[in-house]
């Protein structure tokens, strides 16, 4: 190497050493377009010299084309990533921006402040260590300021920068600034912040953004960037007890069995005793394996592979924990939920819940109340719509391990996923386990399902008839039951209309009530199967997810879905009960096929072509299937 190269190498080595000291701060900026939020972030990028010449050239050209600053550089344009948004002039999603100084690397979540986009703010806040809340100095603390602050505190952010922006438009008045600070401090008393740093700024002019502002000599605090560079973060993850959700079991050969995961909190050393709390099995850490060699100790945030001294049964979804301070293991808990999709939440519908690395079926057993994000008032409701926040009880189909969100965000947060659209429908933060989950155990009895069914000379099952009103479900089900009875089989027929006269007479025909209707029938048929009966269920059951839920209650193979596929025109022409006529006339609301959807089964075990097959043939086909499958 020549001398010049040596010098550069030495310089870069020194530079990289300082980089080694550098850490990462993630923050979110909250405010609307009117508060100058995009300009605020644009300014930070600009002043930290993160813009390149070609980006600058593009920005200058775009500023002239669609800018709002009379041809001057419009920093806001830097941030509006998607073309459609650029033309609408609003930011509609979460965008992540990066900049770095000599002290820190920063990741900024840029999220919109409009009410309908609560979900984006919650998304951005979920990974942030700090929030910058922007206020327009001319307008002071507004309803949206409260909304942003509430959401930020809901997601557990403890540190806030209150950037009072557009100070240039209020003549840099100290009085205006002080009034806003005291209004905000008073309001924020009800929130759980540890630190609020108010800073008077003008993002457009650059006052107090990077250095001290000459226009505001009365302000002696730090500039925005100085504060962001020095604020202390992340210490709490290390002081918390050890948690590591297992992502992947690493088995390259028979001699190596490691558990790979990212340490959610605490530290772990070789020789430490750990426990898998759901099973209670424990062992000692034998090795902490990484590509770069074994470690003696690993800390929160590191991705490692642990091997244990004993063979214990651990798989993806389990959480390895410190033995002293264990998480709670339960199948019911209370949580705060933010609804993130346009389909409303339906109580009793089964969703998938992903917490840590585990996924479990879960339903919202009760919605206690919703919270108005503007006023923080609690309101009664039986559903959650897009961008609404509710406090709910959730019930899971098996026990899982977790911590309250406020103790440990990494093991106290979850998402809910729709089982059919696969959309992420909600974000949740656990408050606490519900004690009754720990105290109610399934009563085990000596005579079991197989014994009961065997005595009857059959295998218990559910024949679930689904189809439109008038498709012939009940007629066929009735014939099937007669045929089975003649064969000396033990049956019971649950019919939609009959059940609605008794067990479900408190339910109407809204989507939420339909879901609950099917849940109860599903549970009832499960008890009947347990009694050893061949159970016939004849319900329109229009939603795939509820039929799936009913199926999920039973053991594999016990549930036979019978789709009576009769076209709507034929059902309507039959109109045995005169219901279609009323529905068309608008006298019946939420009528399946007319004003409410019917979701066709995709993989029904038995399909009856209601337009061609007679009820008699259909019933014979079903009985034949039962024989083939060994139920009778």
């Amino acid at each position, binding site marked *: 190497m020549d001398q010049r190269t040596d010098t550069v190498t030495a310089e870069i080595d020194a530079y990289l050493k300082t980089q080694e*000291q550098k850490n990462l701060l993630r923050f979110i900026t909250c405010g609307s377009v009117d508060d100058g939020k995009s300009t605020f972030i644009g300014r930070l990028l600009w002043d930290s010299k993160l813009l390149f010449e070609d980006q600058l050239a593009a920005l200058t050209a775009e500023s002239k084309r669609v800018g709002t600053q009379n041809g001057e550089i419009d920093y806001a344009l830097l941030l509006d990533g998607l073309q459609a948004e650029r033309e609408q002039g609003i930011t509609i999603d979460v965008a992540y921006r990066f900049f770095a100084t000599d002290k820190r690397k920063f990741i900024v979540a840029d999220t919109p402040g409009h009410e309908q986009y609560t979900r984006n703010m919650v998304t951005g806040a979920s990974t942030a260590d700090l929030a910058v809340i922007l206020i327009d100095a001319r307008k002071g603390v507004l309803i949206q300021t409260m909304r942003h602050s509430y959401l930020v505190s809901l997601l557990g952010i403890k540190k806030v920068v209150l950037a009072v922006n557009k100070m240039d438009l209020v003549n840099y008045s100290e009085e205006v600034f002080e009034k806003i600070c005291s209004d905000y401090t008073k309001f924020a008393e009800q929130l759980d912040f540890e630190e609020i740093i108010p800073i008077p700024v003008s993002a457009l002019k650059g006052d107090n953004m990077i250095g001290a502002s000459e226009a505001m000599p009365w302000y002696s605090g730090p500039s925005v960037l100085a504060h962001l560079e020095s604020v202390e973060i992340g210490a709490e993850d290390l002081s918390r007890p050890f948690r590591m959700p297992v992502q992947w079991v690493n088995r390259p050969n028979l001699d190596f069995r490691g558990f790979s995961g990212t340490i959610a909190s605490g530290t772990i050393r070789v020789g430490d005793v750990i426990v898998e709390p759901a099973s209670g099995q424990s062992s000692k850490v034998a090795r902490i394996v990484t590509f770069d060699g074994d470690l003696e100790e690993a800390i929160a945030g590191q991705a490692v592979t642990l091997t244990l001294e004993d063979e214990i049964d651990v798989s993806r979804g389990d959480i390895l924990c410190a033995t002293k301070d264990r998480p709670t293991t339960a199948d019911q808990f209370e949580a705060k939920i933010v609804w993130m999709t346009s389909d409303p939440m339906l109580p009793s519908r089964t969703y998938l819940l992903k*917490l840590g690395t585990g996924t479990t079926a879960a339903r919202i057993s009760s919605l206690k109340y919703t919270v108005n994000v503007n006023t923080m008032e609690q309101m009664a409701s039986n559903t959650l719509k897009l961008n609404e926040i509710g406090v709910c009880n959730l019930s899971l189909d098996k026990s899982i391990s977790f911590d309250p969100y406020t103790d440990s965000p990494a093991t106290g947060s979850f998402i809910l996923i729709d089982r059919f659209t696969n959309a992420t429908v909600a974000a949740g933060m656990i408050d606490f386990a519900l004690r009754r989950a720990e105290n109610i155990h399934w009563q085990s009895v000596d005579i079991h399902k197989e014994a009961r069914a065997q005595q009857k000379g059959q295998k218990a099952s559910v024949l679930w008839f689904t189809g439109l009103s008038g498709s012939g479900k009940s007629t066929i089900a009735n014939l099937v039951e007669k045929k089975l009875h003649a064969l000396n089989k033990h049956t019971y027929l649950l019919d939609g209309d009959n059940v609605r006269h008794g067990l479900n007479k408190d339910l109407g025909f809204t989507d939420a009530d339909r879901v609950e209707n099917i849940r109860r029938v599903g549970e009832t048929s499960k008890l009947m199967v347990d009694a050893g009966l061949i159970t016939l269920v004849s319900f329109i059951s229009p939603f795939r997810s509820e039929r799936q839920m009913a199926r999920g209650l039973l053991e594999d193979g016990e549930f036979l879905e019978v789709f009576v596929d009769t076209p709507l025109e034929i059902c309507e022409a039959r109109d045995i009960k005169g219901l279609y006529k009323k529905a068309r006339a608008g006298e019946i609301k939420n009528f399946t096929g007319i004003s409410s959807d019917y979701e066709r089964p995709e993989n029904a075990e038995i399909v009856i072509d209601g337009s061609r097959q007679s009820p008699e043939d259909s019933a014979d086909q079903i009985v034949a299937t039962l024989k083939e499958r060994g139920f009778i």
Partner: protein
Amino acid sequence: MSTSRLTHLRQLEAESIHIFREVVAEFERPVMLYSIGKDSAVLLHLARKAFHPSPIPFPLLHVDTTWKFREMIHFRDTIVKDYELELLVHINPDGVKQGVGPFSHGSALHTDIMKTEALKQALDHYKFDAAFGGARRDEEASRAKERVFSFRNEAHHWDPKNQRPELWNLYNGRVRKGESIRAFPLSNWTELDIWQYIYMEDIPIVPLYFAAERPVVEREGMLIMVDDDRMPLNEGETPMMKSVRFRTLGCYPLTGAIESTAATLPEIIQEMLVARTSERQGRLIDKDQAGSMEKKKQEGYF
């Protein structure tokens, strides 16, 4: 949330490893798109870290447009051999039949047929349900909003208006048959992070990133390297030998070189620190109009 005891590079590294493991645990047939460039080099390095001591549990896929720099292909084959990787190479056979190339068909059509279409063909053929890519959010405005798990429908289309929200480090890996995701473990890395990490970890990269005397011609303000004799020269155009290097690598006729004498990583990083031109500028395909990258992404380009 950040953990102050880890440096930013170690934190980015751990987060990328986490993403690799989530995808492998939740998908049936993942694949890593390997473009041979520096981001792919880092991606590959992180994949090796994520599953150690197991080998990487998925194949690499290189979509070869047949117009890559020769040194790239040589480098690719060496790496695959040294690390004992499973490599799949796909070339769009229809494009080859029609003789599609950037000179004869223009950059837009060439990219569409040999890259975007070819990628879809390969993904469909092997039925991959997750594809790792090395895209970073700092590269371009529309990428700033892309998710780490970026959902694609059956036609491989991306719907920027209807993305799944991504919270904490909880990624939703549920797809139906035929649907897929693109997973981006380097989402939160910047170009400078990539270079620093390559230096810190001593990751091998294609020599084209280092300055050397190379034959180039100047076209539309860009220095294009004459990598083989398929490049038609305009009248009076003669390749000049210049000390150049590349900040990104792709098809040689579409990739602009920069004049530089930076022949070592420290020199490259030093140039980076004073750089005033962002890296995609060396790519002809982004120049058409603002928003052009977003259009390509919706159609299935990375």
